[in-house]
């Protein structure tokens, strides 16, 4: 870890000011679960670390009549315990799956959405795209944990966010602020993530000096949801594949289904056709299984990760069955 300035703003505006000094070669510290490793490995070398934990406006969970606004600093533990989020079960499933008490108590929602990929080429210093002499190390190396969808360009890592599939399936929006102290914009979370063609693009639309301040969830109404993560270990572990589903049901028949997979592509991966396939049908082993098939129909596994297609298919099926409380006999 190299020397850096440390700043602790009290407001969003002050945070943005501090972030935009040094040509925005700055880093945001929230829970620190990702940033500390990045600093230790010299993967990020900011001139200043801006610790936003004291920005009160980003802590709160409030209702606005049409939904719930969740501050980006909300911890996983807060998500699990807040009554306003009790109906968003797919989010609670993610908190459960995280299992680590340390991450649950320190990790934040905003931090999860901005978590950089766990790709071992990236983490070992070969850059976000894992290139050496312009060639993809992922394609020719060990890609057992890499993307099976959206992997035809140079980016073959998988999105690390565990909440994004559930949030996108809920139709969440995200508030991006900066770089100017007064600039703010709400956009659908689905549009937040990008698949970079070059390393400098990063994993999201965030430009240097910008940050997420809030996430907005539409009213849960009578919708049901679930997330299923395929986890090798019972302890802290990254999912090998995951899926979230949010269902609008009418007498047990699907009116609308939104299905989003995680850890299978460089971004959260919405399975539109799989969702469509359920409309007008009940969710059961057969329809959910078919939706799983459709969700991975376009998969393009790399040399060593075909098994992940099976895992993603299963995650979709189980997320759907979980949403209607029909998931039985899974480990």
């Amino acid at each position: 870890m190299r020397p850096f300035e440390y700043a602790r703003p009290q407001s969003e505006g002050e945070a943005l000011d501090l972030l935009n000094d040094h040509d925005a070669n700055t880093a945001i510290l929230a829970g620190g679960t990702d940033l500390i490793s990045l600093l230790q490995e010299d993967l990020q070398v900011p001139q200043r670390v801006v610790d936003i934990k004291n920005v009160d406006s980003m802590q709160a969970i409030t209702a606005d009549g049409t939904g719930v606004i969740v501050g980006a600093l909300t911890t996983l533990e807060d998500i699990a315990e807040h009554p306003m989020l009790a109906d968003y079960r797919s989010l609670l499933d993610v908190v459960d799956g995280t299992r680590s008490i340390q991450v649950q108590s320190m990790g934040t929602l905003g931090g999860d959405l901005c978590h950089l990929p766990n790709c071992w080429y990236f983490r070992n210093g070969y850059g976000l795209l894992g290139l050496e002499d312009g060639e993809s190390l992922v394609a020719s190396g060990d890609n057992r944990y890499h993307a099976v969808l959206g992997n035809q360009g140079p980016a073959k890592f998988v999105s690390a966010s565990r909440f994004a599939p559930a949030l996108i399936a809920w139709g969440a929006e995200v508030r991006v602020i900066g770089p100017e102290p007064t600039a703010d914009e709400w956009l659908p979370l689905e549009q937040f993530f990008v698949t970079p063609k070059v390393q400098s693009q990063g994993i999201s639309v965030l430009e240097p000096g910008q940050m997420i301040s809030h996430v907005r969830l539409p009213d849960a109404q009578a919708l049901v949801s679930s997330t299923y993560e395929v986890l090798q270990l019972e302890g802290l572990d990254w999912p090998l594949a995951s899926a979230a589903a949010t269902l609008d049901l009418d007498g047990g028949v699907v009116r609308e289904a939104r299905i989003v997979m995680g850890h299978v592509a460089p971004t959260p991966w919405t399975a539109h056709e799989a969702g469509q396939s359920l409309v007008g049908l009940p969710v059961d082993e057969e329809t959910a299984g078919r939706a799983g098939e459709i969700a991975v129909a376009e998969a393009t596994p790399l040399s060593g990760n075909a098994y992940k297609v099976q895992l993603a298919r299963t995650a979709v099926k189980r997320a759907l069955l979980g949403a209607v409380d029909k998931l039985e006999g899974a480990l």
Partner: protein
Amino acid sequence: MAERKVAWKARKDNTLIGQDIPRLDGVDKASGSAKYAADINTAGTLYARLLTFKGGAAVIKALDVAAAEKTPGVRAVHVFNGVDKEVRWDGTIVAAVAADTPEQAEDGVRAIKVTYEAKPHFVDEEDLPGAAKAKRTKPLGDNQKGDVAAALKAAKHVHKGYYGVATISHMCLEPHGSHCEWEGKDKLNVHLSTQNVSGTGGQFAGPLGLDASNVSITCNYIGGGFGSKFAADQWGVVCAQLAKKAGKPVRLMLDRATELKIGGTRPSGFAEVTIAADADGNITVWDSHHWGTSGIAGSTIALSQTPYCFDGIPNRNRKATGISTNCGPNRAWRAPPHPQLCAITDTVVDDLAAKMGADSYDIFMKNLDKTPKPDVYAEEMKIGAKLIDWKAKWHAHGKGGKGPVKRGLGMAIHRWGGRAGATTCTVKIHPDGAVETFLGSQDLGTGTRTVIAITLAETFGLGVRDVKVNIGNNSYPKANPSGGSITVGGVSGPLRRAGLEALWKIYDLVAAKYKVKADSLSAKGGKILSAGKTVCSWKQACGLLGPMPLEVQGQGPKNDGLTSQGVAGVQMADVSVDTETGIVRINKLVAVQDCGLIIDELTARSQVSGGLIMGIAYALSEERIMDNRTGRFINADLENYKLPRIGDIGELVVEMYQPDSEYERGVVGLGEPPVISTGAAISNAVANATGVRVPVLPLTPQRVVEALKGGQA
């Protein structure tokens, strides 16, 4: 007077031996007051950081440490590998920097300029044809017994299969390393994380040009060794050199990635095996060719113990091929190389049973006549079967239930030696009754300190806390390095001998003073008794020594029955397999284990539980992943080097097999055996659940899903 004979007490007379006695240092460890080498921080201690090679193989073309030496706070730089040196595996240390703070040491490392010229590398331990093409193979022998061809013709059941175990790395909680401090020019004090307190002083002295008598080695506590910490190691000597150069103490512990990369590995083994049996299920043929890697040296698991435990199979061909890879070198890893041998042999036996349509338990039982300890295995199998409810729960392979989650049972057997190591101890009894002992042994976390106290306390009729145990320093009488399960016998024999000799001297003094017969005396509850009646207190008896303490030396091993060797063990696993995700979960593991006379049953069971947990790791998730493309150990971090957490462990049932016949054998080592058959037992349970053999450990979701897709039986 009756002849005085060295022996353990009659079993019924023990008050401490064989009981559950919590370890003496438990509170110190749990509270953090126990100091490990990594904790030593004497005034002015400098921090060391390492520059390591990151790649498969290369030659160093240029190296410039001038900027590092000028970095603020940096006090000393040492070059391990300079210009024109070849670095042959990922993680090889190039240079070390010692500085006032860890950050300054890191700055110094970053300031080193090094230019490499890449060389071809080969790291795929499983790819035998690829290794042959790259000229990386070497024959490691082959031999024959009986007539395999004829026996195969005559056999009723024949099974062929492919099996394997990936390389794993040592992963001690406390990495390798030391704290070195000079006392004047010629005297070096080392706090070393070591399994070999008595044997490492010379390893520092030689390269440093010191008299061995001027090197003090201390290791009061160690955060794991498992076979990887017998040596001073180059980085230990360099720690002393940095300290000398800087004129200040230096602590150099390997960082986690480097620990995984060069702290030592367990070699891999992959095998093509043919096994056959007659109509009754008697195994008649074993024919195997196995290969694997131990790193650049290109070894694999031993040919001589293949097939494992079933030495008596009459017709046998076996062959081994080593692969030289650009991977970190191997070191002894708990029970070398039994876990790999067992994982290959006992899965093959299980598949043969499946092919016969037989219960694996019956086939193991039927073939115990080919093992070294048929009777013990048979008894242990019966106990294990009862504990896991084998008869009720076993089903034919592949009949593990409806739905995606299948359940199954598996078993395996193992053996180990566990003879007593060579140790000398001093037992000192002070005239006020205080008892202490000195020996240059070490407690790896196995409970050695506690076992030492129990042995003397039982001998003198005292409480465990009445014995002061002095270990962990090379100025004490020399003790065996703790490896190979030789320590419990190594220390308990000499202590019992010395203790008895001291006790007999005290008995003689008591006999003279109190006019009782010496051979009527016994020591119990802090008193000396004659025919059951109190003669005097222990303190009064020791007061008869006069002004000077009594000192007795104890030695071992000796053939007087205090210690022995040779154990057999049986493990059984009950697992669930999610066939849609490839996830395997442990429901229950049963271990039935003999180890002769048990000194502390609590620490014995704890050893077995620890073995099972390490077994779950290499069975389900732990493996070194070498990236063929970059030649790097790509998962050398604790996110991707996957070890089980509490939730992955399931229910562990440990049953110490200890009929009187075991007690009469004397003390036998226990450290290694419980880790051996866990992998095979779990693999067999997965095969029983799914009807498919997942051929290579660890049984990751990927391997399980791929095996199920292939449907190979």
